[in-house]
């Protein structure tokens, strides 16, 4: 290295220009910065959630803010959730059929498809569709309101933006995601059944008997229970992204994209931990163990 290092550019980390050690130091600093940013955002979303829950109980939500959001979140999401549910059921049938046929266990297909649907795919699929359809739209809408000072206008008139904008969306997601999940479950079960029985020619009676032996109310309820957490996470993350939108069209676009990405990641992370929790509860309720599929 030359003895006279070039003068550091103002605002840039001087360590960055000092050879390999400096490069590693800069790399560590960058990672540290990213970690700090991640933890700060996480803490911020949690505080945002607590504030939302506080406002949910502080004052009764207004019907005129609640109903349009319920319509948007529930009614308009129903067709797309139903359609994707239907196809996922059929895809499951296609994928597992050949494996099961080798073992001559075709009629067990019902158990496999329906169990994985109600426990995992139904809730995760409904939540993913909600995050994509509603979450990013909420982030874009609130982001635009932030950029055009409408959120400031609410505050300036002595109205609380969380009460007006976040609580109805949060309640909409929380209350309606179980119904969407049940819809996805139902359509998935139907899709699997029709494809299995009518296309793959599996015996209908045994298909259902095997399903009945394996899929219980606990499985359906655990899926619906998980969906509540997904709904809450989607609403809070998306509204938070919208509230902290950067100026301009690019800012709104970024808010919408990051709302979906963060929601999706948290759906999967929550799914893992809730799955572990539910398994533990199941083991304590039914100590004889996992049922044979």
């Amino acid at each position, binding site marked *: 290295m030359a003895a006279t290092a070039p003068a550091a550019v103002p605002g840039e980390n001087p360590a960055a220009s000092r050879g390999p050690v400096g490069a590693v130091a800069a790399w560590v600093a960058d990672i540290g910065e990213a970690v700090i940013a991640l933890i700060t955002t996480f803490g911020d979303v949690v505080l945002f959630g607590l504030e939302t829950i506080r406002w949910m109980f502080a004052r009764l939500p207004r019907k005129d803010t609640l109903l349009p959001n319920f319509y948007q979140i529930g009614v308009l999401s129903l067709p797309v959730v139903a359609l994707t549910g239907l196809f996922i059921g059929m895809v499951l049938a296609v994928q597992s059929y050949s494996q099961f046929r080798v073992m001559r266990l075709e009629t067990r297909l019902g158990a496999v498809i329906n169990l994985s649907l109600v426990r995992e795919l139904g809730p995760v699929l409904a939540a993913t569709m909600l995050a994509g359809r509603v979450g990013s739209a909420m982030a874009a809408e609130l982001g635009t309101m932030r950029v055009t000072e409408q959120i400031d206008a609410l505050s300036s*008139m*002595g109205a609380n933006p969380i009460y007006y904008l976040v609580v109805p969306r949060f309640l909409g997601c929380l209350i309606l995601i179980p119904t969407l999940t049940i819809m996805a479950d139902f359509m998935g079960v139907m899709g699997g059944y029709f494809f299995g029985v009518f296309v793959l020619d599996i015996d209908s009676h045994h298909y259902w008997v095997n399903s009945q032996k394996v899929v219980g109310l606990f499985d359906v309820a655990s899926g619906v229970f998980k969906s509540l957490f997904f709904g809450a996470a989607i609403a809070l993350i998306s509204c938070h992204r919208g509230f902290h939108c950067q100026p301009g069209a690019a800012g709104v676009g970024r808010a919408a994209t990051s709302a979906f990405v963060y929601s999706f990641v948290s759906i999967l992370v929550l799914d893992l931990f809730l799955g572990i929790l539910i398994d533990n509860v199941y083991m304590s309720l039914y100590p004889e163990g996992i049922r044979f599929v």
Partner: protein
Amino acid sequence: MDNMPVTEAVPPLVDVRGLYVSFAKQTVLRDITLTIPRGQTLVVIGESGCGKTVLLKTLIGLIRPTLGQVLFDGHDLSKLAERELARLRVRYGFLFQGAALFDSLTVAENVAFPFREHSHKTNAEIDRLVRELIAEVGLNENVLRKYPAELSGGMRKRVGLARALTLKPELMLYDEPTTGLDPIMSDVINELILRVRQQLKMTSVVVTHDMHTAHKVPDRVVMLYPLARLGTSEPQIIFDGTPRDLERSRDPRVTQFIKGEAGERLMEMRTQFASAESMMKGR
């Protein structure tokens, strides 16, 4: 609490003491001290980026000071809880730069919003008051059912003004009320500012870089200067006086602004062009 004599009859409506506002690493306002007595109309002028809008938003507590205090009628805004601040904000009116009307609500619903939030009036009463307010800002009743997206810029500003006036505020804040409007509509807005001030006897702060407004509307003019162009010991308020004093000011920074002359900025720009050109040639 300091031991100031508290026998003063009425505190000034707005009292800004040693205000600093910084975002990330950038300081926008530095050591601003400003008292606005009741009934005064103050115009804050200054070029874009000098912190005018930030000052306006700190007056209503939308931006919290990094240091210093903003007192409204004796209440320190930064010491108030969210709920108390919300209650205090009923005494404010704020006209935002883009009017900030709620897109999802009609004009009538926008104007009715503060009534629905803060009063127990019946629908019929609210409807009557909304019609009155819309007439007061010189708009026709047929705008009531329209959505903000269907209105022109000037109409939107007037609806925003009507909404800000619903609860008869004591302090009215205007953020660049004439920016983006044609000269005639600008004058209409200036007239409206004067009229509502006379009718409601309120205190107003108008942030603008429109010299027409700065001459026509105020009792007092304050000029802010961007911190980046100031030395560390120079005050950020470079002018404070009546519109007539403004005309007589000898400060070149003030006269340049009034006359709209770029002055030394042109020189700066030329050197920047020159260096950009030499870089291009070097390549």
